[in-house]
């Protein structure tokens, strides 16, 4: 013990020597960090400027009134276009169906792979990430015959815009998988399940009342991402001729660009608030959730 103490005292001497020299190095460091700080601020201003400018221009454009005045008339006018209101409602309905469908499909499957068939985990992961390698426009080409068939054979439901939820669930899989997976990794799901089962809970109860509450952060993130994705989806709905929010915004752009910019900005702000809330209130879960590849 004493030897170690001596050793550390001995080691302290060169350290002390370095300490004398330090002010020089620290000065260099400070100069460097001042340089870094100004570089950092310059980058923030320039790149941020580029990112913010079009958003600012949207705000400016959509609030133009008569004779150079400012007015919110374009925002008020949103509700005077019935197809815009319909588009918003349609997209929100699709979003709700997508969220529930996605959770129903993904959550039990993911829990099951962790608890019972870990060997299949990689397969499920691969299938969930697969949509990243297949562009949305390619999915449209391949799925159009399936939709034509559904439209002809499934009655009113087959032709409803709600059927878009089927594809949206596929599109959201990569993001939802990552969000839920990062939550599942933070809790020992297998042990939780075993404990619940050994106390006599059936599988539905184990999943719904024991595991789901423990991964609610990931479930929340996945749901929010699904909502944002559905509200922003254009490619598939436009090519399959469904009038969702984005399609309506696009069509409106030709008639009344001021109102369509107003709707766009409102939708972007809405999506921002949603994502900011996950970043803020579901940390950890939200962190990885917003990662990777868009679906534009």
């Amino acid at each position, binding site marked *: 013990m004493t030897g170690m103490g001596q050793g550390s005292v001995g080691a302290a001497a060169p350290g002390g020597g370095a300490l004398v020299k330090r002010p020089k190095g620290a000065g260099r460091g400070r100069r460097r960090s001042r340089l870094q700080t100004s570089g950092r601020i310059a980058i923030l201003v320039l790149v941020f400027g580029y990112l913010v400018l079009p958003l600012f221009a949207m705000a400016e454009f959509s609030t133009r009134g008569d004779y150079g005045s400012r007015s919110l008339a374009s925002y008020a006018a949103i509700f005077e276009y019935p197809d815009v209101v319909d588009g918003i409602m349609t997209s929100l309905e699709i979003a709700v169906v997508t969220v529930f469908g996605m959770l129903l499909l993904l959550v039990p499957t993911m829990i099951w792979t962790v608890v019972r068939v870990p060997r299949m985990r990689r397969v499920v992961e691969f*299938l969930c990430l697969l949509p990243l390698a297949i562009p949305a426009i390619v999915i449209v080409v391949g799925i159009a015959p399936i939709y034509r068939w559904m439209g002809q054979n499934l009655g009113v439901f087959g032709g409803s815009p709600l059927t878009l939820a089927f594809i949206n669930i596929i599109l959201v899989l990569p993001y939802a998988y990552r969000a839920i997976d990062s939550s599942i990794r933070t809790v020992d799901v297998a042990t939780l399940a075993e404990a619940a089962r050994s106390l006599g809970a059936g599988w539905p109860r184990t999943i719904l009342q024991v595991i789901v509450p423990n991964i609610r952060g990931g479930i929340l993130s996945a749901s929010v991402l699904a909502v944002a994705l559905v509200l922003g989806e*254009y490619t598939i709905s436009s090519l399959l001729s469904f009038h969702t929010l984005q399609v309506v915004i696009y069509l409106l*752009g030709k008639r009344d660009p001021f109102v369509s910019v107003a709707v766009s900005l409102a939708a972007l702000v809405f999506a*921002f608030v949603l994502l900011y809330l996950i970043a803020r209130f579901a940390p950890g879960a939200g962190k990885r959730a917003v990662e*990777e590849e868009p679906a534009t």
Partner: protein
Amino acid sequence: MTGTPIIAPASPGTTAAGPATGGAGSRRFRGAKNYLALIPFHAYVGFFLVLPTAIVAIGAFTTAQGDFTLDNLTRLFTDDVLVSAFMKSIQLAIMTAIAGAILGALLAWAVVRGDPNGQLRQVVIAASGVLAQFGGVMLAFAFLATFGFNGLVTILFKDYLHVDMLTDASWLYSLTGLAVVYTYFQIPLMLIVFLPSLDGLRQEWYEASSSLGGSSWSFWRSVGGPILAPSFLGALLLLFTNAFSAYATAAALVSQGSPIITLQIASQFQSEVVLGQENVGKAIALGMIIIVSIVMTLYALIQRRASRWVR
């Protein structure tokens, strides 16, 4: 103290005894039942993702009558319009991936220097998520409001600064315009993808390098650079596929013709008229799948290497 050792060996014993008494048959049966629970998921993905992909792949090799043909695919290499659309898409994707990766990496660096749980970071990440992933048509309109014929910057230059720059807004509707808007959504995507790697770059390494007499430059050249290189390269590939497969922005901006490949698919899709070319759209789609799959496979390989340093 005595309780735990007794229970501990006992529990593996009982679990081992369970399947043993049940016999190998029931164990295999239970295993099969476990796999059965995954059927809904696989059926769903099979029907709505694998089947459409198969329809595309098979359609690319068949005529409208269902006979085998290579005409659709050879068209990809012989039809000037399609060749040029593929080339332009690839060019656009490479250019905007590089520009977006550099600007996004710089922005990520500027953001990561701040407090990891700070407001700035959370706001930037949320905003990046929106701009990178849910833009599409709305971003096209944002640029029309900025650089369009009645856009903010156009009016500013024309009426207030009286400079003859950017006053002819038609550039926005061309490939140049697409490149500018694409770069706009590449930057936030780069930030989202690259931020975790920058987080993995530890302050201790920087201190170790400088205490050994290394300058800031030598740190980036021999420590930071090599560590970040795989993630940067991976992100570059991801950005490439992102721009390559983008459709919404281009559809909303480009008014004349179909200069890029996603617009070509859409126009083939919307007007399936020319006799004998019914499945050309599927061939183009298959071409896209092949290009994107190659790039994404490379991405996955690089990512595996890059993830070593990500905390």
